[in-house]
């Protein structure tokens, strides 16, 4: 933190002599401690998953959602400062509604990412505001198929096959890189996502957590009916909804088992080695 004391980090919209905007970098730091959140873009949909640490036993299980529905076909997961995330979500919802009003169609994922990217970037330009302390992962689908974007506090956004942010992002990223996402089906991705969240959680093992998981899909019988009216509605046929509880629980069980087996193996190897040494 060589920047501290130089004065260039006191205000947004002021560059340091070596061309950095420290306020934005500090915002990125805020995200680095956020909940591990991942997005996977598969051939038939998108998955969002997040590790929700249980901060109090008094909280109702499943409450305080971190992944929000923006429109029928769109969901956003945020990691970092929760209230910043809520404001970001509200803006995304407004953008989506305004797109429907103007064009009588569902907003394409790329367009929402572009608008939200511009919105986040505007918060790096003025001394009266601070950047968003969140990274947002946008999952959705449109005529071009499933889409996944990640927006950083600087306003930077890229489209991804797989995205990870928050505390466990390094571990999560290296796990995602092993997947063949263009061949992966949504159902397989549910299991992978749960496993990745468990692997990424490894670092702070002692804390209890829940997995929150949603998907964007075209063929979920239950949700398709619940979410929409078909006749005359503005809708592109894709649904963002919670992954059914049973599926997540099953995936979590399998993930836990796989990780325990890994650990046992490692310990087994260690024990063998010790035996040999003896």
């Amino acid at each position, binding site marked *: 933190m060589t920047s501290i004391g130089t004065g260039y980090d006191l205000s947004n919209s002021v560059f340091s002599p070596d061309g950095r905007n420290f306020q934005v970098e500090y915002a990125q730091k805020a995200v680095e401690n956020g909940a591990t959140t991942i997005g996977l873009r598969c051939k038939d949909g998108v998955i969002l998953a997040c590790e929700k640490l249980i901060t109090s036993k008094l909280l109702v299980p499943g409450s305080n*959602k971190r992944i929000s529905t923006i429109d*029928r076909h769109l969901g956003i997961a945020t990691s970092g400062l929760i209230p910043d995330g809520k404001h970001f979500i509200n803006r995304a919802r407004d953008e989506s509604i305004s797109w429907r009003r103007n064009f009588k169609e569902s907003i394409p994922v790329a367009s929402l990412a572009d608008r939200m990217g511009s919105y986040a970037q505007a918060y790096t330009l003025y001394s009266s505001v601070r950047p968003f302390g969140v990274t947002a992962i946008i999952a959705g689908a449109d005529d071009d198929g499933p889409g996944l974007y990640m927006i950083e506090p600087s306003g930077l956004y890229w489209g991804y096959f797989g995205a990870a942010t928050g505390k466990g992002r390094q571990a999560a990223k290296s796990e995602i890189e092993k997947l063949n996402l263009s061949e992966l089906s949504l159902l397989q991705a549910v299991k992978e996502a749960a496993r990745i969240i468990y692997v990424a959680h490894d670092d702070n093992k002692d804390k209890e957590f829940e997995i929150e998981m949603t998907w964007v899909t075209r063929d979920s019988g239950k949700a398709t*009916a619940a979410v929409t*009216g078909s006749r005359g*509605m503005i809708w592109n046929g894709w649904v963002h909804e919670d992954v059914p509880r049973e599926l997540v629980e099953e995936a979590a069980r399998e993930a836990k088992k796989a990780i325990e087996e890994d650990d046992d193996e490692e310990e087994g190897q260690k024990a063998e080695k010790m035996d040999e040494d003896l």
Partner: protein
Amino acid sequence: MNQHPHGWGRPRDDVYGAYDSSYLNSTQPVTHTQRPIVTGTSVLGVKFQDGVIIAADNIASYGSLARYDNVERLLQVGTHTVVGAGGDMSDMQYLHLLLDNLLIKEQYPADDHHLHAPQVHSYISRVLYQRRNKFDPLWNSILTAGADPNTSEPFLSYVDLRGTTFSAPALATGFGAHLAVPILRRHVPDEAAVKDLTREDAEKLVDECMKVLWYRDARSGVTYSWSVITKEGVETGSKKIENQSWKFAEMIKGYGAQNI
């Protein structure tokens, strides 16, 4: 052309006469939103023992011209509700937009609560009443039909451009209120009669009323959309009026070239 600096670009008064600016300071309020332009006619709705049936034809008229013959006037709202609208079609489309946005906002909490017919009806009636208080009404009469997903209790309610609402076992808007309601009431005079009306009978009844309207309402169409809402959800379809007989037309006197 008037070359005086204050009048550049304006016709010369001595050639064309003074400009008539009287229309600019009219003391009348704006009225062009206060009449329907492209209109749909009746919507019918009947409760039966385990649901509701609702029907509306596909014509949108421009005055007495049958301008469009493929207009969908029934809108499914959520899983167990259908809204049918008569009156101004652009106002109906605006209402569809409002309902669509309402449904999306209803999804934000992801709490597994959903809007059903009573809530949708209530929302529409508030919108319509608010607009009549602005002296800028949405020029529609609307039926909201639905069934409770748990109890299968049917719901059917009417609201018009003034925000007036009422419910009955059988309802119709527009011309149907005059021509179809008496027929419907013969079969379902009260809530008790609803329990004895089967789905088949209800469908036949609606078909019969749509036929009468096709015969006698000059703004009606020969194809119509229907929806049946039960606790299982919404079934929809389209029908054409069959087995027509225009024999009765011979008896009609008073129009056209007649020698009697």
